[in-house]
């Protein structure tokens, strides 16, 4: 089975961090799952989440290693520490899964999401939307006399904030990719 490269806690002597603290506080965790890029691999992961009643806040998947035939699934999930540990163990035992990383506990990581916003408006509203887009470093990727399409990249909360600001300015449509994440450093 894939090695669960989970950072060892102070209480863990084993390869697995099986002595989590059992608080009842629901935490949000970002998991990176390296999985063989074979038919049905994503369905296995998603089916596990729905079948066992786990939450998926966001999920992205794409092949990241063409020669090694590996895909990377980034899952943002939430649950108590016990549930998070279960999720990691359950995902880890799916046969084509190579590695499961809990980026939330393994150290600092960067999270990025891309979103596209369509904002429809005229006059001062339109100018304000453009001004705010500039502040958020969003790019205009399409424009008509009555609309803009902005492209924005950032951590999910930055995108949430931008969406909130655009709402009163004529926000008409949103597409978001979900989170991609990597550990910082070497």
């Amino acid at each position, binding site marked *: *089975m894939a090695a669960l490269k989970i950072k060892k806690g102070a209480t863990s002597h*084993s390869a697995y961090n099986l002595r989590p603290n059992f608080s009842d506080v629901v935490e949000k965790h970002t998991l990176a799952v390296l999985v063989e890029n074979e038919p*049905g691999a994503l*369905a296995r992961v998603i*089916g596990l989440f729905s079948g066992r009643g786990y939450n998926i806040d966001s999920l992205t998947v794409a092949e990241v290693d063409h020669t090694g035939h590996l895909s990377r699934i980034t899952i943002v999930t939430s649950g108590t520490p*016990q549930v998070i*540990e*279960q999720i990691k163990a*359950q995902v880890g035992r799916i046969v084509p899964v190579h590695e499961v990383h809990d980026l939330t506990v393994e150290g600092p990581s960067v999270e990025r999401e891309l979103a596209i916003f369509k904002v429809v408006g005229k006059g001062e509203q339109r100018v304000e939307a453009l001004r705010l887009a500039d502040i958020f470093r969003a790019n205009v990727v399409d424009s008509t006399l009555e609309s803009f399409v902005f492209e924005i990249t950032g951590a999910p909360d930055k995108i949430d904030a931008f969406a909130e600001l655009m709402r009163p300015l004529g926000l008409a449509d949103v597409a978001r990719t979900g989170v991609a994440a990597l550990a910082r450093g070497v």
Partner: protein
Amino acid sequence: MKRQMTGAKMIVQALIDQGVDTVFGYPGGAVLPIYDEVFQQNSIKHVLVRHEQGAVHAAEGYARSTGKPGVVLVTSGPGATNAVTGLTDALLDSIPLVVLTGQVPTFMIGSDAFQEADTVGITRPCTKHNWLVKETDTLGATLHEAFHVATHGRPGPVLIDIPKDVQFATGHYESPKPSTSRYQPQVKGDMAEITELVAAMETAKRPIFYTGGGVINSGPAASQLLRELVDATGFPITSTLMGLGAYPASGDKWLGMLGMHGLYEANMAMHDCDLMINIGARFDDRITGVIDSFSPKSTKAHIDIDPSSINKVIRIDIPIVGDVAHVLEDLLKVWKSRGRKTNSEAVAKWWQQIEEWRSIDCLKFNQSGKVIKPQHALARLEALTKDHDRYITTEVGQHQMWAAQYLGFEEPNRWMTSGGLGTMGYGFPASIGVQMAHPEALVINVAGEASWLMNMQEMGTAMQFGLPVKQFILNNERLGMVRQWQELLHGERYSQSWSEALPDFVKLAEAFGAKGIICSDPDDLDDAIMEMINHDGPVIFDCLVEKHENCFPMIPSGKAHNEMLLPGDHETQGVIDAKGSVLV
């Protein structure tokens, strides 16, 4: 060595190379090329079942009684969907199976072709892993990988879906090589954790071993090491339904099965222990009762090959991920090297307490009058068959629990029952699989009449292959366990829980050309059982028993281990509260 052959031939060749001697199956359009190859060889016996569910349960019986993977071959569409119950059963009980299904040709997949079903989609959540093979060149390697995955780590069922054009086409085949698979689960336990468990064992005052099917799955060496460990430490041992036989029922450290219908002394000891050593069990809800009051005073160690079993329901203090045999070997080594210490004075006191619980004699029953009590029927079956080379399968319900309580198992792999999924209809086909693997043994399926009817078509299989399986039916004309719960929980409103229009089982047996025996008088029971044992051929034994007997002891749902109902607790109304009644 690479060879060219058709996909169909490759399948048979791979089975031979994997050491398969028996396949359970049923032909159909999408597996005709494979059946054509089966026809042209003599290495593998094919057992033609009467329904695909029967094939999977038979393969489970074969696997559970031999430790080898069971192999199933069925067609596409309905063949595959009929196999789903068996796959789920094997997944929940961790039984290694390799199931081969035919599929419509690759160019027709997705067109709603005749007998097309999305087999890998349907079976994804009820297999350990599955594959759809689209090229004949990858078929051989996939077959070998399937056997590897089914039997390594926590065993389980795997499925390979093979389109008909892949069976016809020619491709490269390579014989299996020593494991090149990436799938290599950890088998050695962490030494620091093992040492910590040894330290806990040295000082424990009220220790208990709680063992499960993982000991049996780990192989005969695990049972041997378990026996050595129990006898050397003198600690009491209990087991789940799945683990019966790993430690002998005649052993003096044996407390009997634990759980919902487990023995009083076993459950009380689990509740009051200060060190619980779980070996290859998974804290199933039939075992724990209500979680909040499960063994509140104990340090809990858990040995399991599947990391996801640990901390799933019960918080574990000493987790050890590994194969039971590997871990027990290291555990014994460490314990011996540290001087074979136990807190023998305290453990002796613990045994005194256990003996007190045991003196309640929770399995006592009173056979009087002219009606056979089901417990009595099983006690007599035990007395008259225990010295035989005996294998027991069961269906699901009251009779299953009574069988677990009143039959004693001295060796592993002698007891085949549907534990996790609770599949009525499991026992009869399973007995066929066991008998195929052990032609000379006495194979008995302890059944209820309702469960047995669910797969009774397999009488044809038993007759065709001359399998002398004994169907010991405790006939109470009720769905006994459902009836019991309706009595305890639903105001004695016995909704749909009786068996009406039952067949005459003797005539049914005779219609198939088998022997039928009916027994209703306790005085005739021994002779009737002997007649069953001595008959060289399949027997349907219709044992008419007390219709309203309840299965005790019982932990009512929503209650703790120390709140058991015992036989003679006649005040059973209202023992399950509103919170407990939502539990299954």
